[in-house]
């Protein structure tokens, strides 16, 4: 077993151990579930520390269709580059923290953790996959556990949420599958770098020709497929339901990592394989980004439930990713990637806090939580910190990413960028409205007998905050590993 | 040799087939439906025998095929009737419209 395989599949060990445990042993199960996320974290950090990422590449023969073994082969190929490595680290961290957050889970811990770990395998695999089919397989593997996690452990309308998650993502993945299969069937390979090369050459030697219009169609399909995941404005409704109905620990994962698969896919495949086509769609991307940003911000403003505020803020923040991508220059794309990571951390933090509140008050509406600063000063403080990070306070990660993304866009489309800036302001407005309403607003309830954030709950909060600040103060912790990836992308874009 | 062209047989067979199909699809009485099916199968036999005698490449195989078709048709009719009898015992009807216990 190679390093990367172990990294990706390490949670499997936890699943096996859990399978053997009796299902009544609550604390033991939770402990095992938590421990099972650690190997991946450790390995991911080790990988983060290495210089030469290519040594982790794994290629093993796996499936080949048709009688010619070299053609139509899907190999088991894992590999890392700067971008995916960062996301893997992010995944490992958020997973571990979400496992801690899962102490609030009230029933069927065994099933929960097994699915949770399966989900982690899927996420790690998605970022490590070097080939489209493998990517798709891991992508779908994330979908099934999510369906169950939402549907079983969620709140009142959990089944509905699970279904809308399933169907939207199913549709997205279906479109993705079409793209993947067309590419695979007509070129005979699913390897991403091979494909990128083949696409770049005119009249490449493939089993079946790929016309320019087909390429454009595939690119658009790819945009839609990942747009569902991201989510881009008209395709976002499922995501609200999930954010509201799923248990907070799951939403940490979902908002923190799963949404990023959309961005990851767009950057990795969209810009990697179809640079020309995406170049021609850049303005569209930027406009979509601005729409997302504004739409999310405006609607977040009128929400009464804090979860909904966060859900719309996610939409809004994903707009920034699109804006960065639409800029088509190094700053923009770097901003987009930064935003991916930063939003992953921030939303994980905020949703963890939501989980903490929900655990204590069984509610997350802003009005009901008013005046929390008195009862739970620490928690309120963290909440405020998270919100500030989210609205892009300098010195925190949100600032870096938003700054770079807009910097990039101002260079190309200043008008669009200017409109987008309204969104930034809005962000500050709605977040502060919500957070201040909760912390200092009119007291919504009695806080007597409510414990503040305690013992193990500190871990995720502090870790996440530390990372947010770290990135904010010292961005090159991300930008250095990203350098190579960015260069490749920029090369593909012809600049 | 023959004053009757092969197309006449084929047309006859086609007409019989269509009558059979019409009966099988529209009749309410299951027995009649089964008989209609037999009619369709017999139309095939006419085809086969006509082809075997007057076809472009006449050969005896057509008649052999017709024999098999007859045998199979008989078996099918037998099975059909047996099932109909079993059904009739339980349901007391041979009307195909009344066979509606199976519905979602």
């Amino acid at each position, binding site marked *: 077993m190679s390093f990367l395989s172990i990294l990706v599949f390490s949670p499997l060990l936890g699943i096996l151990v859990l399978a053997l445990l009796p299902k009544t042993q609550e604390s033991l199960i939770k402990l095992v579930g938590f421990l099972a996320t650690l190997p991946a974290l450790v390995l991911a950090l080790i990988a983060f520390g290495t210089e030469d990422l290519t040594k982790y590449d794994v290629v093993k023969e796996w499936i080949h269709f048709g009688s010619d073994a070299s053609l139509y082969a899907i190999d088991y190929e894992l590999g890392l580059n700067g971008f995916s490595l960062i996301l893997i680290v992010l995944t490992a961290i958020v997973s571990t923290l979400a496992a801690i957050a899962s102490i609030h889970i009230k029933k069927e811990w065994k099933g929960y953790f097994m699915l949770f770990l399966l989900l982690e395998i899927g996420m790690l695999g998605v970022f490590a996959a070097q080939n489209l089919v493998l990517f798709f397989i891991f992508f779908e593997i994330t979908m099934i556990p999510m369906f169950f996690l939402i549907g079983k452990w969620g709140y009142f309308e959990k089944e509905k949420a699970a279904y809308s998650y399933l169907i939207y993502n199913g549709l997205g993945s279906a479109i993705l599958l079409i793209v993947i299969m067309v590419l695979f069937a007509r070129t005979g390979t699913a390897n991403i770098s091979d494909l990128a090369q083949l696409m770049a050459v005119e009249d490449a030697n493939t089993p079946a020709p790929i016309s320019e219009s087909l390429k454009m169609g595939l690119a658009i399909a790819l945009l839609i497929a990942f747009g569902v995941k991201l989510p881009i404005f008209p395709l976002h409704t499922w995501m609200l339901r999930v954010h509201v109905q799923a248990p907070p620990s799951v939403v940490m994962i979902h908002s923190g990592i799963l949404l990023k698969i959309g961005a990851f896919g767009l950057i990795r495949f969209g810009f990697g394989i179809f640079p020309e086509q995406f170049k021609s769609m850049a303005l569209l991307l930027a406009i979509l980004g601005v729409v997302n940003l504004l739409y999310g911000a405006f609607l977040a403003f009128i929400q009464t439930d804090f979860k909904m505020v966060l859900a719309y803020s996610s939409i809004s923040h994903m707009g920034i990713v699109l804006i960065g991508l639409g800029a088509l220059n190094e700053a923009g794309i770097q901003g987009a990637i930064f935003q991916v990571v930063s939003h992953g951390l921030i939303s994980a933090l905020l949703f963890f806090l939501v989980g903490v509140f929900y655990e204590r008050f069984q509610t997350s509406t802003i009005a009901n939580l008013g005046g929390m600063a008195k009862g739970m000063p620490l928690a309120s403080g963290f909440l405020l910190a998270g919100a500030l990070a989210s609205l892009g306070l300098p010195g925190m990660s949100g600032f870096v990413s938003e700054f770079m993304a807009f910097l990039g866009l101002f260079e190309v489309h200043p008008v669009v960028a200017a409109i987008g800036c309204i969104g930034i302001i809005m962000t500050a407005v709605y977040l502060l409205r919500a957070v201040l309403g909760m912390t200092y607003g009119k007291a919504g309830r009695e806080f007597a007998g409510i414990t503040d954030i305690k013992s193990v709950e500190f871990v995720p909060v502090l870790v996440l905050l530390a990372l947010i600040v770290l990135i904010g103060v010292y961005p090159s912790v991300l930008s250095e590993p990203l350098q190579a990836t960015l260069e490749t992308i920029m090369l593909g874009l012809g600049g | 040799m023959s004053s009757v062209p092969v197309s006449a047989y084929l047309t006859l067979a086609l007409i019989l087939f269509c009558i059979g199909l019409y009966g099988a699809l529209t009749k309410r009485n299951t027995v009649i439906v089964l008989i209609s099916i037999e009619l369709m199968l017999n139309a095939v036999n006419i085809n086969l025998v006509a082809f075997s005698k007057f076809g472009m490449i006449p050969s005896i*195989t*057509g008649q052999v*095929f017709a024999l098999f078709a007859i045998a199979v048709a008989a078996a*099918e009719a037998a099975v059909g009737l047996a*099932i109909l009898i*079993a059904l009739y015992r339980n349901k007391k009807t041979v009307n195909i419209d009344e066979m509606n216990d*199976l519905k979602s």
Partner: protein
Amino acid sequence: MDVDTLLSFEWGAMAPEFIILGVATILSIVDLFAPKHLDRKIFGWIGFAGILLALASLINLVGLEPISILYDTFRLDGFAKAFKILLLIGAALVMLLALSYKPKEGMEEYKGEFYYLLLAGLLGAMMMASSGDLITLFVGLELLSLSSYILAGIRKKHLPSNESAMKYVVNGGIATAFTLFGMSYVYGLTGTTNLIEMTNVLPTLANAQYIYILGIAFFMIFVGLSFKLATAPFHMWAPDVYQGAPTPVTAFLSVVSKTAGFVILIRILLTVFGNAFAGNSGVAAMTNFLVGMQDYIAFLAAATMIIGNVVALRQRNIKRMFAYSSIAHAGYLLVAVTALSSFMYDALWFYLGAYLFMNVGAFAVIQLLTQHTDNEDIGAFAGLYKRAPWLAVAMGVFILSLAGIPGTAGFIGKLNIFIGAFASNPAHYVLASIMIATTVISYFYYFGILTQMFFRPAAVEEVDGGKIRMPFGLGVALVICVVATIVFGLFPNIALDFFHTNFEGFADFLQ
């Protein structure tokens, strides 16, 4: 024909058929003379052993060169071997299901028949797989059909069973007539019923009138065979029959019968119509007849997928739902047929194999549950995870595989079909997109079952604590199915390599 010619045939090629025939015959005789109180279950085990023996003898034959005996009416080529393996495995699993089938009423006196009729149906299917003549094809088809008719109605005192059998017979009869009518035209055009000889004659037919007749023949045969496949336009029987028939029979219909249907479809399509030409506007413009028909097949495939998946959404009865699901899967398979790419055989073979395991497995669970609760409503699955977690997980695997989720054999099967559809020229984008879209639609009802099993509490607390006792045979079948579904999902090359090394892509198909 004298003794020497008789002995000169390689009868060994028919060994699997002979074994099945022998076992079926012996069982039927023993059944008549065995004492009444003898438990007929032993017959099931004998039948199962017979199928395994036949499978062993078939695998023994795998390495041989194509054999054609009895004046080319019986062919043992790669195609036949490959699909016979599927048929035998499917029948063996169904037999295991049948062994554990204990309905509450209506089957008291017909236990023995059940087993040997199953074998007779299997024999018919196997004959279809390896016949090189329209007559034997037809006889095999009918042997399978007639056995299935009776099997569907074998619960003699059970009204739904009777009714389903009746509907099956009527629809089947019409379909048979269609097929036969088409075959008669093909015979008329070629003057022979032998497929090999036909392939020699058909390319010489270039007259527009003949092509026209051939077109009619094609549609007749295709429509007739769509009955066996349960695809549009002859799918209407499936829901009723699947619902009314005993569950093992339903499994048999959805697996063995369907596989056999595709076998005969491919045989006829490729040998007969694959060699004819459509239109004769200049020699250069001659196109293959089958290619000319692609659009129509594509239309039917699309209709089948849409009907199957959309109507399935409304179903509450689990067997009925699976009937529509089976229609949908037949539609997916038709996509592979439509594409006519070099991947067609792999795709069909693998998909049918995957479908075999996942569907039989699903039916095993359905049988166990419906028998246990005497309730075929989808609600019977409610709270299964609580009552029998392993069973629920197994069913979950089958459902995911049917829905085509990665990690299961169903996904690889679909992948294979997609490659075929996209790799062919011109590529079938629309058709494949419909297939993918309908797959997503299928999530609704497939995951509906998962929802019932995992999310909902059991509808009623059962008297005996809701414990489900697992009969041995069924348990074995379930384990095999789960393992196969997952193994072929993760390591599909076990099957694909076996296929390619042994059957060489059916290069011997037309020789």
